[in-house]
């Protein structure tokens, strides 16, 4: 795929990649109140990595990821499942959401809860499954 690389794609890609990734985290975090959430954010992140795949090659994309997307699947499922457990210790049924509200220096009034952990799990599963398929398709291509 290397010889087909376009300079425009490559240049814009390097600018877009971090922006898209930050945007995906932004979507993930704000998902509980505004449009967004783990599923959408995961798709954005996966699309960003696909972009990287198009202007570099598979080896570089795998290096960028640091982690095999198949492992992301497992971690995502584990995290999502574990997020149900704190409720059990609080005497609530499994998966009852638990929230902690606090005031942080810069962010101000902030709330953190188990649904966020669950959403991060969803995020990881979505990124993992899309990238696992795309990367292995790209590998089969070569």
């Amino acid at each position, binding site marked *: 795929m290397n010889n087909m690389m376009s300079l425009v794609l490559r240049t814009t890609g390097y600018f877009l990649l971090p922006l898209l990734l930050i945007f995906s985290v932004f979507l993930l975090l704000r998902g*509980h109140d505004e449009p*967004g959430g*783990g599923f959408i954010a995961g798709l954005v992140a996966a699309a960003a990595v696909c972009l990287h795949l198009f202007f570099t090659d598979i080896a570089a994309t795998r290096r960028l990821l640091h982690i095999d997307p198949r492992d992301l*699947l497992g971690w995502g499922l584990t995290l999502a499942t574990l997020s149900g457990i704190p409720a059990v210790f609080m005497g609530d049924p499994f998966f009852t959401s638990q929230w902690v509200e606090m005031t942080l220096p810069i962010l101000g009034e902030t709330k953190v809860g188990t649904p966020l952990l669950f959403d991060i799990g969803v995020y990881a599963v979505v990124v993992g499954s899309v990238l696992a398929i795309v990367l292995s398709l790209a590998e089969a291509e070569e």
Partner: protein
Amino acid sequence: MLLAVLSGFLFACIAPVIHGARPLAKSYYGAGWVLAALPAVLFLWFASHLRAVGLDGEVILDSWTWIPSLGISLSFRLDGLSLLFALLISGIGFFIIAYAGRYLEGHKDQARLYVLLLCFMASMLGLVLSDNLISLFVFWELTSITSYLLVGFSHEDKSSRLSARQGLFVTMGGGLALLAGFVMLGMAGGSYELSELLSQRELLHDHAFYAPMLILIVIGAFSKSAQFPFHFWLPNAMAAPTPVSAYLHSATMVKAGVYLLARLNPGLGGTELWTMILGLVGAFTMFIGVFLAVRSTGIKKVLAYSTVMALGTLTMLIGIGTPTAITAAMAFLLAHSLYKGALFLVAGIIGHSTGSKDFMHTGGFRSAMPVTALFAGVAALSLGGIIPLFGFVAKELMLEAVLDAPLFSAVLSTLAVASAILGVTVAAIVGIRPWYGRLAETKVTPHEAPPAMLAGPVVLASLSLLLGLSAPLVQQWLLGSAITAVYGAPVEKTLSLWHGFNLPLLISAVSLVAGLLLFAVWQGFRRATRFTDVLAKIGPEQWYERAMVAITHVSAWQTRMLQTGYLRYYLMVVLSSMVALVLSQMWTYRDSINLLIDFSDLRFYEVVVAAVLASSVLMAAITSSRLSAVAALGAIGFTVALLYLLFSAPDLSITQVLVETLTVILLVLVLFRLPGFVKLSPTHLRLRDAGLAVIVGATMTLLLLSVNGTQYFDSISEYFIAESAPSAYGRNIVNVILVDFRTLDTLGEIFVLALAATGVLAMIRFRAEDKDL
């Protein structure tokens, strides 16, 4: 108590880290001792309840809600019976994990063994502590799964894979019967809580479900505890590493079935049916187990079959159900766990220090391994039921119970006496054969085992002796409350080492002499009984093999019939079944359906979007170029996203746009690999497909119109809108529904997503491999 159960799973998560830690990996003792700390702590924690639960007979209950709407909770119960089991599980677990640290030293998968052992321990504790039938069942299945993984530990070896699968099929098949039995029990008793069920003895006995649920539960218990005709899986499970066999397949897991029967005895026991099934099957299993033990020569095979005998004895005693029998059962349970755990560990030491795995290749090891030999001897004495060991106490009680049994006493006594004789022979094989006589030639020069491996046999065998000497104390502190829990009322039977000169003692003496005589002519006996091998050819293991072959045939047949491999047929089946179901329902309720057709608030842009949508659909259907088909599908997708946006569903819209984008990426990757776009179907088939498509579309339109015009229930959206911010801390209702109100649905969906991704990966890889060939 929840923490006690969960700590095993939590510890299992960090076990690989501990195992890999550099200072531990290099040290002499390895990670085994560190990981063994958890069972040790649990043992002490359970032991701290000995006074309250064991001596004073209290019952500690502890409950967490799980699925309250279905009556399922994580409720735990610590009474005499669960305390006895919990102490055995954690106490023996300590030695097993420490032992495994040395036994498999340097093995590449040692971390996996630790993880599985800890998971198993936690599941087993959950099983014996559960007070809720459903959570008990969940832990029950978890023990089957961990057992499967542990038996198949050497997964490169085909025979151990087969043994693992056999154990899994037998116990899981029994598990299904058990679940059905539990559901019937819950329906009959009106609760899934054991504490409520067990007090309703009369209600359960007279219920119409009594016989079927008893049979189903008994099938589950028998398959787990290797009762005839399920006994064959246990000796095969010896493919597991020796510490695993010692732990799962003798001391704990296989006793789960016995535990369940004991647990349910106050509620279900005491009927003629109960005594008949449990008593006769148990007695027969006892005899067949010990007979096959004497017929075998593999060290672990002999021990495994003698475990089958012990499990049969326990089942039989619970079936008899008299106070003496229940007392005998609990005493026998404790005695067996101690001596059999010790003997299995000794078997592992023999294998580890000499390389012999068969009694034919052992002999004269006494001088090289004096400590092992001594404590193996003590444990074997307990196995043979010889005074003053605890096994003697248990055996005397067993004989007394069988002689006084209200039903089938003659049959049970005959089998029990025969088994007692052969039991002594087994004890002699284990206790004498490897240690005395001419030194056998071995692959490894015999040497004494390291302390971590000796600790288990030494402590367990010594306990057999100590508990035998202090039998009344054991009853007072531990067994008494367990017996009460099983019998359902306090029992006036005292345990003691010396019962005076009576019939059981005479039988013991006779069986000791006869057993030793039999040992002297062991090889002759094995030759003389060779004719029984014919029976194995028509025995239950063959039924299992036949059933497996039959399952494969049925599966191949139905795959040929149903799985044509053509996407269009799958789609046609799915779509036409959907249409048929929807239309038949709508026809049933045709009187109450209003079709809401109202174009009064139609906007201009809505018409435009609809027109774009319709023309894209047409384009996708009639185009003859793949690229334009893809483009048309993309246009449909983005127009739908626009529709979502117009009707204020931004989340759906974003998702749709992103999915469309990723679809394009995927298509880019595969487009060039696809074969040319040619029309393969003749015109009449295309007409048929078009007809089906129109019908499906019309049905969906009809359905949506009628959904809008008909309201059977109040919409649940009002509740979500009202509750989203105050109780779920979120203003984006779509997301709140996904991650809070309906978390379990989402969890299911991401599991499906992950499975689908795995499936696609597998397909891509197979394609790639095909090309390589």
